[in-house]
């Protein structure tokens, strides 16, 4: 301490310091608690999970298991079986697709259930270890074999197919438009030209918007709850995101509504290592099996079917997307 403060009685300085530390800690505690709030209002806890959104245990019990003949020695499938669990790259914050229940710690949703069914098919038990990955690193993790598969609304594109392999598509979805409840000027993507639009970082909306709504200005947020909050706070006039995600958001959030029909077709694939044609064929065979025996439709009905009306759709044909 310089002479400027030394002039004061030192004992008092210590007391002041202690008191201010206490104040600072109390303030820090308040701030830390508050930082949780911005995420919650948009996400409103765990939509769909609880009664609905969780696939029945009976579906897993009835799901098929691969015959030993399908798992040759030295194959990826055999390594997974010996390890006793499937390493899945996925999200923990996508409602109805792959969302972690903060209480039980279990990951539930369409993607998460399919991953567990694939684990059951290979190992005999639905044992999955979900590795939380960012959308930026999926290709790198698959190439490094840090994960066996990626179930993460992973749109099949020819560019991505040069890096990794896609099994499937296992689900087709599309981008749609959501606006605030009181908005009456925007009826679909055609009305977005030249407007400010909220999107999610690293979602297909970032690349689809420039052609679908020329001149629109994007405001990108890292997570879906943040984007919903940004829409409700007027940082953009509309929020463009996957239709099912928007539908589940609108269900728990009376302040927003989905307008118009999906305006793109996004074929979602299961990301795999590119040099493993055997594993890709194996996963495709499994997909064909669970689509034929009705497991796929049951999983869809229990998850996405809780917000999308009209019953389970026809699953997309394996290999129908360019790049799969």
């Amino acid at each position: 301490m310089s002479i400027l403060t030394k002039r004061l009685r030192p004992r008092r300085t210590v007391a002041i310091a202690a008191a201010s530390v206490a104040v600072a800690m109390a303030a820090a505690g308040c701030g830390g608690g508050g930082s949780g709030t911005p995420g919650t209002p948009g996400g409103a806890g765990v939509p769909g999970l609880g009664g609905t959104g969780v696939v029945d245990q009976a579906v897993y019990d009835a799901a098929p298991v691969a015959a030993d003949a399908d798992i040759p020695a030295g194959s990826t499938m055999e390594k997974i079986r010996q390890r006793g669990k499937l390493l899945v790259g996925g999200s923990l914050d996508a409602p109805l697709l792959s969302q972690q229940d903060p209480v039980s710690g279990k990951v539930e949703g369409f993607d998460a259930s399919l991953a567990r069914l694939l684990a059951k098919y290979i190992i005999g038990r639905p044992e999955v270890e979900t590795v939380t990955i960012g959308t930026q690193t999926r290709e790198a993790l698959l190439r490094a074999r840090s994960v066996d598969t990626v179930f993460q609304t992973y749109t099949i594109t020819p560019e991505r197919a040069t890096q990794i392999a896609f099994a499937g598509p296992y689900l087709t979805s599309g981008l749609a438009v959501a606006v605030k409840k009181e908005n009456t000027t925007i009826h679909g993507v055609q009305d977005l030209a030249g407007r400010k639009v909220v999107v999610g970082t690293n979602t297909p909306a970032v690349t689809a918007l420039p052609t679908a709504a020329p001149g629109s200005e994007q405001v990108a947020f890292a997570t879906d709850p943040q984007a919903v909050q940004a829409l409700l706070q007027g940082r953009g006039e509309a929020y463009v995101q996957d239709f099912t995600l928007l539908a589940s958001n609108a269900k728990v959030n009376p302040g927003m509504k989905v307008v118009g029909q999906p305006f793109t077709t996004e074929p979602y694939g299961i990301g795999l290592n590119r040099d493993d044609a055997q594993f890709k064929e194996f996963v495709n065979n499994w997909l064909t099996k669970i689509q034929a025996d009705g497991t796929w439709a049951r999983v869809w009905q229990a998850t996405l079917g809780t917000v999308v009306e009209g019953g389970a759709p026809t699953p997309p044909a394996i290999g129908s997307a360019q790049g799969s």
Partner: protein
Amino acid sequence: MNPFSGYLTELGHGLVTTVELTVVTTIAALLLGVVVATLRICPVPLLRTVGLVYVEVLQNLPLLALLVLFVFALPQLGITFPLFTSAAIVIAAYEGAYFAEAIRAGINTVGVGQAEAARAIGLTFSQSLRYVILPQAFRAVIQPMGNISIALLMNTSLAAAVGVVELTQTANNVNLVEAQPLLIFTGAGLAYMLLALLIGLVTGRLERRLAIVR
């Protein structure tokens, strides 16, 4: 398409935003740092407490939490800043606490005799600070302040999470189309490294010219 040549305009815009954010924020954080450091050594106990609380609160909260809080909680109270402004304010406030501590460390290196002599010739607190203490204090902590500036540059990448389209966000967007994460993020990393080296070079030069050899 080649991930770099095809997107040079976008990546360039991102880089410019990063540089803008860094420059604006560094200046603001430095000014704030001087003010807070002054508070922490001033003779009024209440103001010293204010300075201490400021530093402890800002240093002990994660920057990302502060950013998210500022961007999403303030509009609930009816105050909405543009995203770039929000990010600049939060990063400046956060790094200001670190600058304040560095400057205070600098002030402590100035000999007690200097302050005593300043007061003895009749300078007021603020005069002795301005003409005697701070000019010497700054010279002692040029390197630490350079390090904080580099940390600040790296921290600007967190602004991507709240919608500021800077270098990291641009790299994300390019990667979304090209699916070449290793290449694109290595490129973005190199750009950050070059900027950091530039800051290091400038502070190194400044230190050689200005440091007091004791």
